[in-house]
């Protein structure tokens, strides 16, 4: 259903969401989107809306769960939090990313000599 390129982006966004939830605890969609924007410091042009399909995807995988709650200014909002398998997934994904980044870095170093 999805091509290789978006897979990478998908994975990226997934990890960002998971990391955000790990750092901030239960959070609603808007909060997660804002946090990702802040951390990436506008380097990533993200439509906030794309966060919702990602959240659904993560929920379907069982990595996060959602509950309706009340926001700081008294609004009904859906709060997302990490599940146990979500935490394990963060560890796995982090490892993957580190490895990918290292490989990438090595590759860039060796090929600059040409």
């Amino acid at each position: 259903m999805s091509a290789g390129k978006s897979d990478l982006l998908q994975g990226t966004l997934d990890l960002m969401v998971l990391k955000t939830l790990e750092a901030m605890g239960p959070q609603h969609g808007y909060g997660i989107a804002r946090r990702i924007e802040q951390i990436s410091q506008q380097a990533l042009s993200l439509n906030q809306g794309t966060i919702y399909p990602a959240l659904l995807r993560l929920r379907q995988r069982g990595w996060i769960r959602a509950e309706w709650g009340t926001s700081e200014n008294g609004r009904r909002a859906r709060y997302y939090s990490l599940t146990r398998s979500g935490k394990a997934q963060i560890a796995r994904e982090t490892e993957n990313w580190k490895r990918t980044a290292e490989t990438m870095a090595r590759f860039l170093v060796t090929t600059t000599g040409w």
Partner: protein
Amino acid sequence: MSLFRILLRRVAALFGVRERESDLDEELRNHLEMAAEENRRSGMSEEQARRAAVRSFGGVTQVRENFRMREGVPWLENLSRDLAYALRQMKRSPGFAATVIGTLALGIGAATAMFTVVDHMLLRSLPYRDANRLVLLNERAANDARFLNNETWPDIREWQERSRGFQEISFWSDMMGRNYLEGQSSALEVGGFEVSARLFPLLGVQPMLGRGFAAISADDMAGRNAGNIILSYPVWQVAFAGEKGIIGHVVHINDKAYTVIGVMPRGFSFPADQPRGATVGQVWTAVQLGAADQKRGNGAKYVQAIGRLKPGVRLEAVQAEMNAIQKTIASEYPDPETARYHSVVELRSLSNSLVDADMRKALLALLAASGVLWLIACVNATNLLLARGTARQREIAVRGALGASRWRIVQQMMMESLVLSVGASALGIGLAIGGIRLAESVRPTHLNLDLSAHMNFTILAILCGLTLLSGFVSSAWPALMAARSPIEPALRQGGLQAGKGRQHHRVRGVLVVVEIAMSLTLLVTCGLLLRTIYTLRRVPLGYRTDHIVVANLNVPSFRYSDKDVWQSLYSPLLDRVQHLHGVQAAGLMSQVPLGQTFHIMLTLRMNGGTIAATLKAVSPDIQHIFGFKMLAGRFFNHEDTPTSQAFAVVNPAFVQEYAPNKHDPSSVIGLKVWNLRKNVPMYIVGVEDPIRQASIAEPSQPEMEMCLCQITPQSGAYQPMTVAMDLAVRTARPTKEIVPELRSLLRQASPEMENATITTMDQIVEDSYGSQRLAAHLLETFGGAALLLCVAGLYGLLAYVVTQRTRELGVRIALGAQRGNLVWMVMRQAGGMLAVGVVVGTALALASGRLVRGFLYGVTAHDGWALAGAAMLLLASGLAAAYVPARRAAGVDPMQALRAE
């Protein structure tokens, strides 16, 4: 997280999908409000804040679409939506739905019924391991493929030793005569076979209970496995109530004691043919070969050989090998005449041997016919769907304009016709089962045709395949046409037909022509068979068939092995039957003409040459019952007694083949043909008028008849000549009335004979048309259905065209066109399609005539009458169907037609 669980959640979401969407809506709304609030706090105006929030969010619709794609299973949702829509469509136009379903059901039903029969007859799997590698071996004369002979053991041994293509060769033979297994009260008739100890291992089947025959070297010699018997499952069940302790018990067959050593598994039978007559099941004893059987001389036992090919070896290759081997074997026969009958060995695959070639051809031809009917049904359904597609052009254009992709439209249309064809298969399966039941009930009794209607897995798979295929075939074209038609003109033109319509009509015209052509092919074939039956019925039989009751006696011959069966059974029985009220004459004959019950071939020497003839025993009164006429000499009469001079009566075919002067029947009178018994010569005393002997369609074979009363236990052929007997009774009373009385007389004579098959001579003659009649009936049905479909197709198209052209017709009439001209205009169109269809169909019929050629009698496959008759029938019904819309065209009221616009 497995893919399966994701799918499960998605499917679960299908059912709660509404609730989820409102959740999402709320979540998105909150998101936007939170963003706007933050923007406001950073100093934007209300309007700016809102707009900025939406901008940074991206497309709300896309998110929701994306969300929905992930949430449910979109194709499944589409499918169920299409399904619901299709069902609504059906409800909206039930007439259309019923027509399509009825049309397809005819095709699917016919094809399913025929396939069920063919599957059962031709493709059934034999209950042996790798049955496709089993081959029957028979010897025959080089110049005569009609008679296949059995072989002697030395030949088989030589094949075993010299052939490379066979893994193993074994053999079996029938036990002589009828076999009765004695139960507590009366005896059960069983099929008895003497088998080589290696036969069951060759078949790859083990007994389910007990053991098989011990197979060691020299295993078939006398004494080995003697007195042992293996029972088939049905015999075990019926005679011994499935008693497990039966192994080791002694049972009696024809008064001989055997020890049961094994029971074969359920479903196993060998030979695999249906058990004939009243037999319960089969039993097997070990063949006992004596010293005489080890030579190729007189008195050696003749057995049927069966071999298993090595894996991957082709039958043709082994046949070539065996041809070479047989050359030397034939030369080892001491007598050159005998050698002649064993000079060629013929290999037949076991599975092919079970259905004779004629029947196989007939079944395949009928299967093809049902396939053609199915095609016609599909074409007709296509035509109907095309018409509907045109009527729905606007609706489809609207859907296209609203953004439905072509693929979605095609999908939708296909779903609609799939729903229709599922309905059609439900109806078709009913038609198929009903049809098979009906065929079963009218099936000729002797025809080896099993029509049991059980639906097995293959049939269901075929049915599903047919359903999908019918849906696909009939909708593919209409769907593509609908999807490809440009949206804009359809929308602009509204319901009216533009230039596109003309091309559309042409397509539909072509389809109607195809239907006509295929229907004609079926009708011609049907006509050929009807002509065949007509011709068969007019063949002079050479005897009377009215008012004759025939009982096929199952004589428990073992009760008479030491008595003279004529004195103790037949003669008293005839006496009593003759005294029944209304009986004019009663007689016995080994087999009545056209009967299919028993056959003895006699090969003997006369005048230095060899004679091969069918041998029959008759009682003198048979002549009066059937009204046989004599060409020369006399028939038997009451002066022929056990002690008088032994005589024989022969038929003209015998004269043709063996008389000194072939043109003078009387030249055989007085010739000595045989020794009735030692030192009692038998002379020919008469020549009968030609009669139809075994089949109406085939010329008679040489035949020799003996007087039943002269066959005593001392005669050479006593056993075979007395074991099977047909009792023929000429009666003045209605034949049905006499049957119960006859049956009770038979029971008195011997309890086993109560189950005799009793029928009438008229019925036997009727049954002898057997396969032709069955095929003709089926083709009548198929042809009739095809005619109906193509007439409906033609009518539908013309009616549609007339409706579409109402305005044009109105203008024509307003401008002064004669109504007769309008009728002519429509009829001309119909005539054109019919003419093209008939021409194409005639070509098809001529080409396919070859398929049924072997089945015809007295007509050629290119019979002018059948062709012309079928064409006339088709033209007449086609024009009649066209006349209705033509009249409507002429009846158009110009004012209304013009106003309608």
